[in-house]
């Protein structure tokens, strides 16, 4: 039983313990906080699996942004939680659900342990073709070159989700500002942090974006950092959320995908296929796409956390 296995084992035990606690605890707010902790520990698990890009993304989006979103929701839902908790099903249903969930888990465990060895992998093919992209980070190469359409569609998913969230606004607040107005407590800790952190956060974000070409990092993680910094200033009251009818906001939302599409279509005459890059120009084009997408992702993620318009467009 070597050291690495011990570390992995304890991490697994911790993760499962927090997950079970999250499901079982009675108070919803506690469950949400538990989930945020769970997300951060899961990021450690990703590090142990040697998937640093995924670890960064899980920590930023899975633990961080999702945690923020759910905590805000849990606070607003507190008044009605106990009422709904009365609908908890009886022991028979719980037992049946436990048996079924356990069966699924067990079947999955059996199947996962019986996966073929040696494992089929696309790493050799990626290694063979990565030189044409000019990138050093294999994951970025997969995201923006080999499977670029997935990334394009995923940017579209973000936009569609935001459209769906905006559609929930009351009619009379349409075009207004999302979320509630936060009061600025000029000498409070939150305002202090909101003045101190964003410049640092922006620099770190740009670094993560830039280095993502060759080392773990990239536009998703960088975009999330930017979104978090913006949200921090809004929540501290230093800034107000922009009204959803603002033209620049709408353009910012779709700019990333539009640049992606434009470069993609340019690839048809220049490189023979949609989303193909001409010889030697792959890395600059990829960086342009990433930069535009990073801004769009930042704006979209922040707006997804803020929610549908809930007040008028006046400040």
């Amino acid at each position, binding site marked *: 039983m070597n050291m690495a296995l011990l570390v992995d084992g304890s991490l697994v035990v911790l993760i499962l313990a927090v997950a079970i606690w999250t499901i079982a605890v009675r108070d919803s707010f506690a469950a949400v906080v538990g989930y945020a902790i769970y997300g951060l520990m899961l990021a450690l698990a990703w590090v142990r699996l040697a998937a640093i890009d995924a670890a960064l993304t899980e920590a930023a989006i899975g633990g961080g942004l999702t945690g923020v979103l759910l905590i805000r929701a849990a606070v607003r839902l507190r008044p009605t939680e106990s009422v709904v908790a009365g609908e908890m099903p009886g022991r028979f249903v719980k037992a049946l659900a436990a048996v079924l969930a356990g069966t699924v888990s067990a079947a999955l465990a059996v199947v996962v342990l019986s996966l073929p060895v040696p494992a089929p992998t696309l790493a050799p093919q990626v290694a063979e073709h990565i030189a044409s992209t000019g990138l050093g980070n294999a994951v970025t190469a997969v995201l923006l070159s080999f499977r670029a359409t997935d990334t394009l569609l995923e940017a579209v998913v973000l936009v569609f989700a935001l459209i769906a969230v905006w559609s929930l606004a009351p009619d009379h607040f349409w*075009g207004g500002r999302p979320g509630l107005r936060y009061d600025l407590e000029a000498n409070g800790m939150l305002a202090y942090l909101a003045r101190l952190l964003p410049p640092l956060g922006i620099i770190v974000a740009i670094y993560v974006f830039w280095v993502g070409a060759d080392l773990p990092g990239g536009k998703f993680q960088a975009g999330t950092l930017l979104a978090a910094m913006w949200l921090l200033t809004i929540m501290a009251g230093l800034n107000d959320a922009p009204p959803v009818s603002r033209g620049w906001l709408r353009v910012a939302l*779709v700019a990333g995908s539009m640049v992606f599409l434009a470069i993609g279509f340019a690839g048809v005459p220049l490189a023979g*296929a949609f989303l193909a890059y001409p010889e030697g120009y792959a890395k600059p084009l990829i960086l342009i796409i990433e930069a535009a997408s990073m801004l769009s992702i930042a704006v979209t993620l922040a707006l997804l956390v803020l929610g549908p318009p809930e007040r008028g467009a006046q400040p």
Partner: protein
Amino acid sequence: MNTLPPVIPEATTAGGLLLVLLLVLPLIGVFAALILGGRNARRVAMLAIPAGLALAVAIGIELVQSGHTLVYLLGGWAPPLGIALRADGLSAAMMLTTAVVLLAVALFARGDFQTPANAREARAPFMFWTLLMAVWGALNAVFLAGDLFTLYVALELLTFAGVPLVSLEGRPDTLQAALRYLLFALFGSVLYMLGAVLLYGAYGTLDIALLAGRVRPGPVAFAATALMTAGLLAKTALFPLHLWLPPAHAGAPAAASAVLSALVVKGSWFLVVRLWFDVMPGVVTPSAAQLLGLLGTAAIVVGSVVALRQERLKLLVAYSTMAQIGYLFIMFPLAFDSAGNGPVYGAALGGGLLQVVSHATAKAGMFMAAGLIYAALGHDRIADLAGVARAMPVTVLTFALAGLALMGVVPSGAYLAKKLMLDAADGSGQWWWVIVLQGGAVFTAGYVVLVLVSVLRRRSDPIPLVARVSRLSEFAALGLSTTSLLLAFAALGPVPGNLVSTPLAPKELGTFLAVVLGGALLALGLSRQPLLGTARLDTGANEGPLRRSVAAVGETFELADRLIRRWQFASINLLVLAALVGGLLVFGSPT
């Protein structure tokens, strides 16, 4: 009816760029609507949808001329490293149907979702047109993508575009319906993704064509098929996983319901077909397919009976959708031949495809007609529809034609579909599906007769209308219903001459009358509305024992449906279904 055999080229084929264009056009439309804002959302939609229809027709023509699947390698990278777009006859037919239905819906809803003159942008109109294009883009991605993970992203796109259509009017009951839809759909997606993970772990690729060559029966393939099928069935609302469908489709505005019923649920059905016919033909067993057919039969029976018990027209049409979805799954057991080999590309698949196309057009027409009645009367209570036929003849005609198309009257697409599936049943010796196919029409006829009798009833005074409906809307709906009724003539590819007989041939006429009579009896017995006599609900004091017991049957069905649609019950059923499918794969007869 002739779906092209799966000979799949490995490189980008001529005309492949059309696939990219059709995939991207709706997305550009959504972006343009966001940026331009306000009234321009509708203008962009009215420009993009006909352009997309032209593209879909072009793809169909290219497909027929070249004689093989159209392929486009995105980024120039071939699978397994890259992603391919593929369009075969099935995809092309679905994309064409989608474009046609969306065009009709756009014309129908032109007047309903107009930005008021004094506002720059209003929420509901802006959202409707943007979401219309979003649904379209998502559906094209589902029909074209050749990689299981890209299909997962496309399914999520479809869900995110469909859910807000349910809650478009913002009422609490529609919001709740939308949330139930979203959560159950997410449960389904996550199971689908789980299956995809297992497949990658065992075979190193998620490309459909490559997987077809690599997949072998074994624990991984069985588990993946079971999980993915169950997840997709949850999104398609097949019995008993239909908990979200009736309130969602009934609560949405009529144009949105038309899109949801006709198109959105077909996306996940399409993926079940791709999974079973293209990825797992050597893995899925006839017994697992019989399970799907059994659930489909249950959907037809339960859905039709509960539809008969409804008091509101839109809920009736929503339950009718649930019943018709059952028909889409009868083709699965019929795709196996008598030796248990399959599923094969043959008459059953052709019949299933025709069934989908005819249902999409007919159901959209039906929802549009129901929406017009609601808009004109201010309510949609079936008991109070007397006199509507005189006031709105075009709308009633639309409903009648759509109903006839769903019942399978010559020469509707459903008729031809039924003929093809009967052929497959005879060929493979599965006589029990003959009973289901012939009997299903009676159940459909039940609620169609109910509504038609209600609207044809006379009133002493003219019915009070609260609003006039636009002629364009009425004729858009009528056009769609007529298309469904005449679909047999427009079916893709050569149709064997003896498959479509005339409507007035003695055999067809006799079948039709029998179906209508059977439906009328069902409606008489099971519905809450009195079919004969005055428009006054029976007090129950004078009911004979036969009437009482038949009514009790109806109530039992309703109660069972209500129980099955509870969250705990439905989600437990989802897992049980996955386990059953898995078990039938493991222990079923090997193909």
